[in-house]
C-alpha cells in the first residue's frame, strides 16, 4: 500500500514537473537542450578517458573543459534571458547573447591554445 502510494506520489511529482516545464518558453528550452548536449559530450569524453587512459592529458582536459565551460556559459545566458528573473529585467536578451558569444570565443581561444 505504502509502496504504491510512493510510486503514485513520484508519478504525480513528475507529472507536475513536466506540466510546469512545458510552460517554459521555447528559447529557454533550446538553451536547456544545448546544455544537455554539452554535458553529455563531456560525459562521453570522461568515459573514453576512463576506458583508454589519460595519455594526451591536456587534450582530454581541453575537450572536457570546453564542454563544461560552454555549458556554464549557456546557463549564465539562460539566467539572463529568463524573463521571470527580475534581477536582469533591464538587460535585453540580445546583449546577453552578445556576451555569450564573446565569452565563448575567448574560452575557445584558450582551449585551442591548450589543446596542443
Amino acid at each position, binding site marked *: 500500500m505504502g509502496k504504491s502510494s510512493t510510486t503514485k506520489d513520484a508519478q504525480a511529482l513528475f507529472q507536475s514537473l513536466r506540466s510546469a516545464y512545458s510552460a517554459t518558453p521555447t528559447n529557454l528550452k*533550446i538553451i536547456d*537542450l544545448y546544455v544537455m548536449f*554539452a554535458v553529455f559530450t563531456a560525459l562521453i569524453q570522461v568515459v573514453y578517458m576512463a576506458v583508454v587512459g589519460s595519455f594526451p592529458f591536456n587534450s582530454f582536459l581541453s575537450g572536457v573543459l570546453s564542454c563544461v565551460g560552454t555549458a556554464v556559459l549557456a546557463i549564465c545566458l539562460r539566467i539572463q534571458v529568463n524573463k521571470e528573473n527580475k534581477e536582469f529585467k533591464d538587460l535585453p536578451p540580445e546583449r546577453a547573447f552578445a556576451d555569450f558569444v564573446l565569452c565563448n*570565443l575567448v574560452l575557445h*581561444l584558450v582551449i585551442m591554445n591548450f589543446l596542443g
Partner: protein
Amino acid sequence: MARNFGFLVLILSIIFVCEAAIFHPISESHRSAALEVFTPLDGSFGSLEEASEALRTFEILGIGNELNIRDSTCPSVVETLGSSSSSLKDLFYALRVNKLLKCEINEEIFAGIASRLKVSVHEANSLLDFYYSIGSLRLIKDQTSEVDAFLVDADGIFKSIKALSQSDGRWRYSSNNPASSTYAAGLALETLAGVVSLATSEIDQSLIGTLKNDIVKLFDSAEKYDDGAYYFDEKLVDAPEHQGPLSATSSVVRGLTAFATSTSESLDLPGAKVLGLAKFFLGIGIPGNAKDFYNQIDALACLESNRVSIPLILSLPATVLSLTRKDQLKVRVNTVLGSAAPSLSVKLKQAFSSGSKDASIIESQELKFDQENDVHFLDAWPKSVDVGNYVFVFEIVLQDSEHKKIYATGGRTKVPIYVTGVIKVDNAEIAVLDSDIGSIESQKKLDLARETALSLSANHLQKLRLSFQLTTPLGHPFKPHQAFLKLKHETKVEHIFVLGNSGKQFEITLDFLGLVEKFFYLSGRYDIQLTVGDAVMENSYLRELGHIELDLPEPPEKATRPPPQAVDPYLRYGPKAEITHIFRSPEKRPPQELSLAFLALVLLPFLGFLVGLLRLGVNLKNFPTSTVPATFAILFHVGIGAVLSLYVLFWLKLDLFTTLKALGFLGIFLMFVGHRTLSHLASTSAKLKSA
C-alpha cells in the same frame, strides 16, 4: 708479453744497426724501387731530360728492357733534332736519349746539328752553353762516324772555359756572375774532358796540369761525415742555381771520372776520399724522387769503373749473430753496384767489447773465402766470444799488388756486432722465511722457463726470498740490463724491486716488516711478476709467477694512503664508451577502432540536440527579412564561423602571434556587425512589445 719483449729486442737491435751505418751495395731493392720511381705517364716521360735520366738509370741497373718507351719517345727526339729552333739543352738531351734508344736519324741531320753546335761553341759565354754544346758534339761523335764532330781550336775553347774557374777549384756559371759553385765545377770538368776527347791535336800539357791542381783543391773542400762519408756542398746556399749536396757531389764525380778517362792522366786523390764519396751515395739508401735516384745511380756507375780508384765496399749480411744457433760471421766485399771484387782476403784484425775499447779478445786472423757464395766467413767462433756487444775491425787485403793502385779499400772497417744467445736460468727458488730465526717456512723450486702459478702466504713478520742464477752459453755469469720483481696488489698498486746480483747469483729478500709502510698496510693478494731482459738475451722473459697472500697489520690513523692510480692512457685517450640515446618510448595508444567508436559517440549528443530542436519546433522566423539587416546578420554568422576556422588553423599550424593579429581584425569586424544585428533585433522586439 714474452712476444712483446722479443719485439723490443728486435727494435733495439735494428736501431743499433742503423747507427753503425754499414753500407750495402746497390741490390735488388734498388731495382724494384726504380720501377716505382720512374713511371712514365701514358707511356712517355714529361721531358726528354727525364726520359734520358730514366733510360740511363735503368741501363746501369741492368733492367733497361723493362722501360718500353721507344715508340712514344722517338718521335719527339726526331722532332727536336730536326727543328732548327731547338735550344742547346733540348738538343743535348735528345741526343742522350737517342744514344740509348737508337732512333732512326738521318746522317744529314747530325751533320747540320754538328755545324750549328760548332758555331755555338765559339759564341758561347756561359758554362751551360759550353756544357750542352760540347756534350752534344761528343754524343754525335759516339753515335755516328760519318759526321766530323772534332774541334779545331780545342786549346782556345779549353782556355775560355778555364777562364771561368776560381782559385779554390770551383767554377762560375758565366763571366758576369761572380758566385762560384761546386756543381758548376763538376759540369766544367765534364765539359773539359769532352774538349780533350774532341780535340784534333794534343792539348797543351800545362793546361791539363793546372786543371789537375784545381781538382786537388776542389777535393780539399770536400766535407766529411762521422761515418767516413765524403760529400761536396755549395758554399752559397741562397744562389738561384743552388743544387743540393747529392747533385753537387754527383756532378763532381761525373766530371772527375770523365776527365780521368779522357786524359789518361793519373790523379793522386786519396783513396779514402773516393771511398767516402761512394759511402755518401750508398748511405742515402733509396731516394724517393727520380732526380735524386738518377744522380745516385749515375755517380755510383761512374765510380764503379773509374780510372782514379775503384771503391770496394765491405758489408755484412747480418750483424746480429746467435751463439746458440751457431751463426757464422760472414763478410761480403763488392764494388758499389754489387759486382764481384777482385781476388782479395779479409782479415779480422781485432774485436773488442764495445764497453772496453782496449782489450782485444780475438787474435788477428784471416777469414776463409767461400767461392760459391762469394762470402768470406769465420769458420769457428773463438772461445773468447760470449754474448754481448762487440766492435769487429776488418781489413781488406788485395792479393795482387797491381790492384792496390786501382782499388780503394779504405783501410780498416769497424763494424758493431751483436752476439746473442740463450741464457740458462738455474736454481730458481722462492721461499717464505720466518723473520726472527730465519728458518724456512715454505720453499719452492721454480721453473722459470714456463708459466707457474705459485700460491704463497705470509704475514708482516716474515720474509720473501727469490733467487736464481743466469749463465751464458759459455758458462760465464750473465748480468742482464733488466731484472725486476714486481708485486701488484688487487687495487692495482704496484711495487717494483730491482734484483741485485752477487756473481752468478741473483737474489732479493723482501722483509715485509720494513715494507709495511711502503705497502700502505694493504693486506690481500699480490701478484708476483718477474722481468729479466737484455738485448743480447734471446730468451728474455716477463713471467707471472703466481701470487702471495699478505697479512699486514691494520693501518694506524696517520698512515699514508695509497696514491691514486694513474688512469690507463688507453682508457683516457682511447675510444670512449658509445653513447646510446634513449628516446622516450611512445605512450600506449588505444586501438583505432575504439577511438573512432567514441568519435561517433561524441557526435551522438549533437544529433540528439538537433532532434530536440526539431521536436521543439524551432524556426528562423526571427531572422531579419529586409536586405540590409539580413546582410549584417549573415555577415555576423560568417564572422563567427571565420573566428572558429581561425581557431582550427591555430590548432593545426599557426602560432599564437599570427592568430592574435588575425583575431584582432576579425574581432573588430565581428563587433561591428554583431552590434548592428543585435541592436536591430532588440529594436524589433521592443517595437513588438510596445505594439
